[in-house]
């Protein structure tokens, strides 16, 4: 009996509270889907840009350090044929090789900084 009256009361509540349901405005669905589509469109673009950035960095690195090793190779070959094997191990030659390495490293640092600044400017 008790259970029956509880069920009956539940039924009445259900009937009465049905009117309390609020209908979402028509544009809400559009707003939600638009935001989701926008977010989805932005995510792959971000990944693409990141990949592009990584590729650029590798290309730059290859060009600068490739040139550096070519110059060092030419220096070694020149010194070997003109001044002999002993000069290759002399402090003067090692100092020159370190200087060439430092100059190219500095050049690479400057180009990285430049790319970074360009990227930041583009994002803004």
């Amino acid at each position, binding site marked *: 009996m008790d259970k029956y*009256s509880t069920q009956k*009361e*539940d*039924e*009445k*509540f*259900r*009937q*009465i*509270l*049905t*009117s*309390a*349901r*609020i*209908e*979402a*405005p028509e544009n*809400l*669905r559009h*707003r*939600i*889907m638009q*935001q*989701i*589509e926008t*977010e*989805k469109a932005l995510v792959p673009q971000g990944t693409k840009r990141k990949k592009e950035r990584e590729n650029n960095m590798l290309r730059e690195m290859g060009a600068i350090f490739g040139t550096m090793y070519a110059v060092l190779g030419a220096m070694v070959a020149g010194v070997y044929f003109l001044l002999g094997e002993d000069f290759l191990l002399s402090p003067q030659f090692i100092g020159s090789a370190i200087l060439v390495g430092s100059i190219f490293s500095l050049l690479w640092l400057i180009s990285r900084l430049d790319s970074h600044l360009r990227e930041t400017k583009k994002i803004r």
Partner: protein
Amino acid sequence: MNENQRVQQVLSGNTSAFAYFVDAYQDMAITIAYRICGNMQDAEDVVQESYVKAFRNLRSFRSDSKFSTWLYRIVYNTAITHTKSQMWIGSRAAAMEDASQLADNTLEINMNENERKEIVADVLQKMPTGDALLLTLYYLEDNPVKEIAKITGLNEPNVKVKLFRARKLFKEMVVSNYGVQITGT
């Protein structure tokens, strides 16, 4: 096609399949958000934010629970954060004081649909937020106590007790504010 299949569709890149979940649950989501926020503008923002959160975290949805329960939990948490409110503390004492006339066990509102709608909306508005929300979840969506516990983070016995008190308070407030009893027609 069941909901898990639709979830898989969305995860595999078909974003427009998510529209099904928006269509199916936006009314209840906005009802929950409105109960907590108290105004439509905030409720709409909360629902929009909740759906976007659900979309972003769809991979974490475990198919052993209902999608609606998972979504309503997000709406509930987002609304609480949005309003910075504490759901289960507070204003019942004041509401009980207002409802000075104790109702008996009957529930009778014998009037036309519009009047009844107005009364129900007004009483739910005046009730403590948590109580109004429990009634909404239990009677509007036919959520079992177990699902309500998952949505609100309360335990099941607690939901049952609060639901009992909410029903009692609702009846008392209808009687004290309108001097009528509710009946279904």
